[in-house]
């Protein structure tokens, strides 16, 4: 069943929804990356909630003009206008008053949403509004998605992507170093507004599929997921788009298999699943990789310290160290080093002694700063330098026992 859905065999509407959700996911992921890198991810929350009064007003205006209040293009235009107003209010509050951005976000979000709810209740009392179904914009509703709606999503999503491609350099620069961008003659405020404009466009497109409360998730979760996999901004943008598209596609397919599964929440939960998976297994920044790295480091430190102790004839008491030394065949169970252990211990002690000499010598300041107790000195100094240091240390001395 799910397989059929993934292969778009569950009928026309299901296929339309899946493709639309994938396109939306790609646009949202790519756009959200810049917001996330700018550390302003939650601005999208304000923008998305601010669309509600626009939807209500557009409905009222269209009905008042004698048209059908449910015209999707009209509703989306209204939502874009009110999201723009919300964005303007947000930027005005942060620039011209003492409020911090988070307070401004919260204020815009709650007030616009509250006003939108008031308008929704007004619409419910209108004769034309009884079956308006505007509540579906809160959580999205893909059941009655038409070909036109899918086309609107596809075209506007493509436009957003084109804009992202054009604006990627200034947006990246502003995200990483706004001061530097300003010295390069880029208007930080304008670039920020352009980014927000793209976010607004994605929000408006996504109203139909995931609804205004959950579109935030499509803008935040895929970029955060992608960030685990790469440190290069261009790749993060593409990966975020890919994760967004995949979540949209898979989520829509899953929800098509059962009638009672709402599309929006499923898409978000699929995206969250990708996020958790990435956080655990991604190389480099993932939890698993970090744990492995930590364990490996721990083992190296214990081995080194154990070898140094053996070299100086000191008994090793620490359990982990004993276990590591024995497993490597460097020490017998009674704490006496094996032949191989003696060789390795002597090498470790020589290395450590060379390091001491390097660190005591101001001429090797640069090399000394690399000392971490693990690095072999051969990887830092040339053979000539090591020979010079060995001359200073002198040859092997008799050990008095």
């Amino acid at each position: 069943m799910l397989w059929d859905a993934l292969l778009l065999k569950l009928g026309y509407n299901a296929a339309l929804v899946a493709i639309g959700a994938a396109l939306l996911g790609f646009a949202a992921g790519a756009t959200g990356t810049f917001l996330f890198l700018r550390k302003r991810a939650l601005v999208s929350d304000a923008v998305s909630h601010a669309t509600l009064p626009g939807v209500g007003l557009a409905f009222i205006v269209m009905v008042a003009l004698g048209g059908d209040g449910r015209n999707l293009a009209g509703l989306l235009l209204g939502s874009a206008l009110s999201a723009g107003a919300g964005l303007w209010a947000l930027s005005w509050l942060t620039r011209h008053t003492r409020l911090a951005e988070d307070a401004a976000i919260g204020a815009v979000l709650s007030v616009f949403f509250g006003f939108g709810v008031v308008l929704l209740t007004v619409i419910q009392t209108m004769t034309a509004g009884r079956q308006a179904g505007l509540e579906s914009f809160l959580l999205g509703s893909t059941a009655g998605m038409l070909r036109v709606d899918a086309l609107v999503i596809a075209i506007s999503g493509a436009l957003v992507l084109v804009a992202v491609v054009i604006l990627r350099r200034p947006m990246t620069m502003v995200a990483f170093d706004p001061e530097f961008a300003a010295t390069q003659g880029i208007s930080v405020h304008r670039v920020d507004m352009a980014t927000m404009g793209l976010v607004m466009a994605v929000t408006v497109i996504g109203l139909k599929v995931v609804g205004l409360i959950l579109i935030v998730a499509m803008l935040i979760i895929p970029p955060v997921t992608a960030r685990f996999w790469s440190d290069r901004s261009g790749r993060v943008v593409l990966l975020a788009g890919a994760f967004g598209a995949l979540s949209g596609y898979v989520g829509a397919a899953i929800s098509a298999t059962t009638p009672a599964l709402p599309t929006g929440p499923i898409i978000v939960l699929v995206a969250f699943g990708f996020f958790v998976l990435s956080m655990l297994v991604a190389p480099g920044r993932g939890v698993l990789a970090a744990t492995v790295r930590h364990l490996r480091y721990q083992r190296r430190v214990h081995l080194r310290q154990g070898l140094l102790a053996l070299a100086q004839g000191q008994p090793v008491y620490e359990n982990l160290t004993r276990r590591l030394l024995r497993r490597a065949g460097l020490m017998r169970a009674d704490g006496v080093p094996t032949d191989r252990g003696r060789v390795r211990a002597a090498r470790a002690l020589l290395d450590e002694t060379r390091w001491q000499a390097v660190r005591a010598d101001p001429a090797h300041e640069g090399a000394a700063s690399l000392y971490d107790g693990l690095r072999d000195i051969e990887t830092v100094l040339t053979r000539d330098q090591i020979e010079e240091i060995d001359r200073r240390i002198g040859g092997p001395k008799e050990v008095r026992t």
Partner: protein
Amino acid sequence: MSGEEFVPLSLPPLLIGTFAAIACALPGNFLVLRRQALIGDAISHVVLPGIVVAFLLTGAVSTWPMMLGAMGAAVVAVVLIELIRRLGRIEPGAAMGVVFTAMFAGGVLLLEQSDTSSVHLDVQHALYGNLESLIWLDATGWGSLLDTDALRYLPPELPRMGFTLLGVAAFILLFWRPLKISTFDEGFARSVGIPTAALGLALVVVAAIAAVAAFDAVGSIIVIAMFICPPAAARMMTNRLEVQVGWSVVFAAVSAVLGYVLAGYGPLWLGADDAVSAAGMIATVSGVILVLAARFGPCRTRAGAPAEG
């Protein structure tokens, strides 16, 4: 308007709305100053799965399991946010966004999957609350306020919200000095021996309690709006924290009363028949107050910064 109509139909929602508004605005003052204003937003999203799970476990819409479920969900969210922030090394805003949207989606999914059609539990209810339906049918007039028989049938939200407000106010009053010091200068607060981490957590917990109690009575819009708008407006009025808290209480109460009255009677004045959402109107009024304060408040700009047009 006569007492016979006002006391049973309008007095309880007015009082509940006002108590909820003030209970959220009080901790909101500190949250806004500490730049944690969006905690109210996050909490009001994540309580939904908690409430739904509590409903699924008990099978009934009863208050205490739902409050516990909501609190549990809030705690889970705080832990998850911290975990993602630390393990994934992600900035707090994005970590918050990931957690609360995912948990809200989970809540919506559970709600749609479970059979809640027989009871009054849906997403709209969670968002807007049902302030208008909190009526006191046993009251016959002002005299009922002294009538113990009638008082027993007060909507249970009223005493609950009243006690929540008392608790929140007591917390703020009791920890006033440490809260104030740690909000403005955390390093100094630590150096004089204030446990800032525990205090910050306690503030979030108190905010969560206020949010959950208010959420149950009036829906999440009021919660988010009241955490932020009255304190933010009050911030434009003064540079003194004591005065700011006072203003925020005034603003919260004015928003609640004016919003309720406008929602209930405004459409009638304009010739329409039906009332509009009180919760939405209260949030709208608080926004209008914020705009006025941001435009004309004596302390609206950042200290030292030149006033821009």
